[in-house]
């Protein structure tokens, strides 16, 4: 059965209530826009969302929050995401905020078969509360646990039919790591290339971490904070 799917709807087959979903992207940069929109339309609810920011400016994953389909969020930063602030304020969503390095390392552990690890990040802070803190070679570390999910929805620049991926610039961020940590990784690629188009040394993520691929040629590519300088 081919990994290449004809539509985003087909690429989401098996998604059901209560699913845990990792979504790639740093804010709105590198989002799997079409897959995110398709989940909002899908009808699945009580989702656990694992994402750095859970959307912003009412866009991207913020739509899931507005639709009320998310029961729980693990993220690192809320910032100007007013939709998330509102959900936290009214208590409608259970939000866990963790350090960004710990966030990605927990997923990396989940994908690599590691059950837990000792990190210096968060020692002496609220992050370490209720967790084991242990000294190694004179420094304290906190035990953090692996994080896995049912689905990872990520965007790649190029994908081939086996699921070998290349990412573009800072749209890469968490996506390749999330791909390793999910049972079903669904890739929305800008460009579907033929097998062999990518040199063996140019593959950012090998195909064994990818279960489904769907090509989406149009993206909104929202800029959250446009900053420029005048031409000299």
């Amino acid at each position: 059965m081919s990994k290449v799917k004809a539509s985003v709807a087909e690429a989401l087959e098996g998604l059901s209530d209560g699913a845990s979903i990792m979504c790639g992207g740093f804010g709105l940069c590198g989002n799997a826009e079409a897959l995110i929109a398709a989940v909002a339309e899908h009808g699945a609810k009580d989702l656990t969302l694992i994402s750095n920011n859970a959307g912003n400016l009412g866009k991207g994953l913020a739509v899931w929050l507005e639709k009320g389909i998310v029961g729980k969020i693990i993220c690192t930063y809320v910032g100007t995401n007013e939709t998330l602030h509102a959900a936290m304020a009214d208590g409608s969503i259970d939000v866990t905020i963790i350090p960004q390095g710990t966030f990605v390392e927990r997923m990396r552990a989940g994908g690599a078969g590691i059950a837990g690890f000792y990190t210096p990040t968060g020692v002496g802070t609220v992050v370490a509360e209720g967790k084991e803190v242990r000294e190694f070679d004179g420094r304290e570390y906190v035990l953090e646990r692996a994080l896995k999910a049912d689905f990872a929805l990520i965007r790649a620049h190029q994908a081939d039919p086996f699921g070998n991926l290349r990412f573009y610039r800072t749209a890469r961020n968490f996506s390749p790591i999330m791909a390793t940590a999910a049972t079903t990784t669904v890739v929305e690629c800008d460009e579907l290339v033929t097998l062999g188009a990518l040199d063996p040394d140019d593959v950012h993520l090998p195909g064994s971490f990818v279960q489904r691929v769907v090509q989406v040629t149009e993206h909104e590519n929202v800029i959250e904070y446009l900053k420029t300088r005048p031409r000299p």
Partner: protein
Amino acid sequence: MFSKQQMAERAAQEIDDGAVVNLGIGLPTLVADYLPAPTPDGGGVWLQSENGILGMGPFPYEGDEDPQIINAGKQTVTIVTGGSCFDSATSFTMIRGGHVDLSILGAMQVSQSGDLANWAIPGGRVMGIGGAMDLAAGSKRILVITSHVAKDGKPKLVAECDFPLTAKGVVDRVITDLAVLDVAGDGFRVVELAPEVTLDEVREKTGAPIVD
């Protein structure tokens, strides 16, 4: 009896289209001859080599060998169309994280509870561990392919291993020259007998109960 080639061919039947497979050194490498190559649609069988290849191809044609393209046995190999190279941390993320669908490994001993011993003989020269323990602990499924008895005639399929373990409770199925057997907890269950081999012969040459 199954010949080595027949054992390899039988092992190949265990593999699904599109699967990612790691073949251990020795007998398991013969399985490659019976596997469909990767296809342009991403199907076929994708061989993983723990030194950093997904999509390992056959040995190169004479004169085409590249010293910087080797397999985990340090033999010159090729990379298939669509294959990729990566560092060892990524390779063992793949292996230990359950992203290899099947590993086909050799064995010195397999116990009825699926314990595997395949890296050291007590009192023998230590060859090392290499990727064996990670493959055994992390692959989604472990298939063993081995002669039914050791060179000294002792059973390799045993109630409990007395050789140093590679991993505990990981082996699913064993293909030997006499039979295909499943690990059953309280013994081994015969799935298939090799031509002209009787259940009594298997029973006699197995160091654990043969159960229904």
